[in-house]
């Protein structure tokens, strides 16, 4: 190992040790290492097996599940469990998992890779498998738009990688066009599928290859479904691993993959199912028996779970953690509300749009299908936070009964006015705002 790389390694480990001592996990050690040796990743000796996961949503959950399956099957895994997925974070965790000669001491490296930074990370080492879950309108204040993200991820793909792709997402599936050996996962027709796109917008309307109109046999959600271009013939590729059934009966939920591998799950949200399917496909790709993969995944409860149950005075409720600047994630939370037959209320909190950067951009509120809330009986709707006025206009123009709507500038004001509801309260908000409500309510065990 060259002296510069060795120095970077030592500094990274030392800073990481200090950060841990003070109870702080961050990507700062990697930042220092990269300053000392910009191509530090090229100096590491990595195990033969490596898997990277990228895409808009579900990276952390998929990586966590793949790590669980691998560890459960005897693999020693190095992965960025802290979720620092930009190049500094990747350097931090890989150097942390290395010995002083720069050899990563694990059987496999598992990597959550930020979709914008994968091109920088993979310049120096190529994961054997690259999983791409989905490409949505997500954090467009940073990510521009999905087609730009596709072009940026494209710069991170090399011939020696095997792609593991969501076949049901046209933009993702297009990475595999004319590429031998690509592995696809997807879902067969499911009970909750729709014959038309229900979103405010339709990112699957036109072919990503030729821009001519596409036709869908069915939609699982948003632009995810079985598609075919009527002009150039680009279509949903043949699936190697398929979600074939979802069941949720008498409080017992399960999904079935490839008609035979039943996995008990906490809930059957389609989002979650795709993450499990991605984990299943990645784990079987490296050679673990599908029965063993299914058994490992069965009953696994995510540490990075996005649901919290709570009590607020007399009111019982559930927080559905969504992502601001990501209409698809909000749409899925709205599906949960609409699918609940109980008497219910909804609170939407948009106070700080991001916890990482400042922006006042609330344009994404107009991409969310709030109109769908009209399909169910809602008791009260609370619109809360700095952007309550933007929300109020959006809900008004969605045609939602204004007598049900209450608007509050602060979460505390809203909480004071919904602590005595005889309806179940769903709170939909993002990481950046969740503590504002969780610090007021009493959390309960998930039931």
């Amino acid at each position: 190992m060259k002296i510069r790389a060795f120095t970077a390694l030592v500094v990274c480990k030392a800073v990481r040790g200090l950060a841990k001592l003070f109870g702080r996990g961050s990507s700062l050690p990697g930042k220092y290492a990269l300053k000392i040796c910009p191509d530090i990743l090229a100096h590491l000796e990595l195990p033969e097996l490596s898997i990277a996961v990228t895409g808009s949503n579900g990276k952390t959950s998929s990586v966590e599940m793949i790590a669980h399956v691998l560890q459960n099957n005897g693999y020693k895994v190095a992965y960025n469990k802290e979720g620092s997925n930009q190049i500094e974070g990747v350097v931090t965790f890989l150097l942390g998992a290395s010995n002083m000669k720069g050899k990563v001491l694990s059987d496999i490296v598992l990597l959550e890779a930020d979709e914008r930074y994968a091109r920088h990370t993979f310049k120096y080492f190529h994961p054997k498998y690259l999983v791409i879950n989905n490409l949505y309108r997500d954090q467009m204040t940073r990510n521009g738009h999905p087609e730009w993200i596709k072009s940026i991820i494209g710069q991170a793909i090399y011939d020696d990688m095997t792609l593991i792709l969501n076949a049901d997402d046209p933009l993702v599936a297009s990475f595999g066009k004319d590429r031998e050996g690509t592995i696809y996962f997807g879902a067969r027709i499911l009970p909750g599928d729709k014959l038309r796109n229900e979103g405010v917008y339709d990112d699957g309307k036109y072919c990503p290859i030729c821009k001519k109109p596409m036709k869908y046999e069915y939609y699982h959600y948003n632009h995810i479904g079985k598609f075919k271009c009527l002009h150039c013939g680009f279509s949903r590729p043949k699936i190697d691993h398929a979600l074939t059934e979802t069941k949720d009966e008498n409080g017992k939920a399960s999904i079935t993959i490839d008609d035979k591998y039943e996995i008990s799950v906490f809930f059957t949200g389609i989002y979650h199912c795709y993450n499990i399917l991605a984990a299943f496909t990645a784990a079987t790709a490296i050679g673990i028996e599908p029965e063993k993969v299914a058994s490992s995944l069965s009953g696994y409860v995510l540490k990075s779970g996005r649901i919290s149950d709570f009590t607020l005075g007399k009111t019982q409720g559930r927080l559905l953690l969504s992502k601001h600047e990501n209409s698809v994630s909000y749409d899925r939370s709205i599906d949960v509300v609409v699918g609940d037959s109980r008497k219910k209320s909804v609170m939407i909190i948009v106070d700080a749009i991001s916890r990482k950067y400042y922006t006042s951009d609330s344009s994404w509120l107009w991409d969310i299908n709030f109109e769908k809330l009209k399909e169910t009986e809602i008791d009260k709707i609370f619109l809360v936070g700095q952007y309550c006025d933007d929300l109020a206009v959006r809900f008004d123009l969605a045609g939602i009964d204004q007598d049900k709507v209450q608007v509050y500038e602060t979460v505390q004001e809203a909480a004071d006015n919904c602590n005595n509801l005889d309806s179940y309260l769903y709170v939909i908000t993002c990481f950046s705002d969740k503590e504002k409500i969780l610090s007021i309510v009493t959390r309960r065990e998930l039931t």
Partner: protein
Amino acid sequence: MTVKILYLYADFMNLYGDNGNVRIMQRRLEDQGFNVVIENSTVYDDDIDFDADFVYMGSGYESNRNLALAHLSRFKGSLLRAVVNGVPMLFTGNSYDLLGKGITTADGTFLEGLGIFNYSFKEQLEKRYTGDVVLEEVATKDRFVGFVNRAGIPDSTEDMCCDAIKVIGNVPITKDAARVHNLLGISLIGPVLLKNPNLAEFFVSAICNRKGIEYKEIFYPRSTRSHEKTLKALLETDAGKKAR
């Protein structure tokens, strides 16, 4: 009385909740007593009927925008006639680029614009220019707030009517937006008319005027508060501190 909104390429150029502008115009026009009809056009239509009371176009992928430009160029004559006749029109985000002389795309190709204004843009695909901005119209001192998300920056700012008086993020612009007759092009993305009620009022009153109807002043307090809160936040936020 019926008014027609022509939404250009509604399914192709609607990347950032741009549909909100059409919804806001619909509501405000209904509040004036109009019956509102919305006509969407696509890039595969054989014709575009510019006989409308309001024309809107939003943002899209650069590849979509280029196809929209090629399509719209076929109907340039009708579009120009409508502009000269004072049809109120709003082009937001990167659709405003195509009103100028042209766009040099990332691969160096020059796409000829509609030539209504003399500015031009140059694009790249390595990074995005994104950020919150406050624009101030030089002639009126009106301020507009919003977000910019684009691949190109102007290589000529001729005819641009606003100064960028505050930029938070990576948007290397000093000028933006252009007006002629009742046409406005502006870089801001999304529901610009929500956060800038003065623009919504301008378009609605112009439509009333063209229809020979007296414009009723109606106060939209949520929209006004959204503008004031955003303007205050943007002016007070440290521009360099929290870049994306």
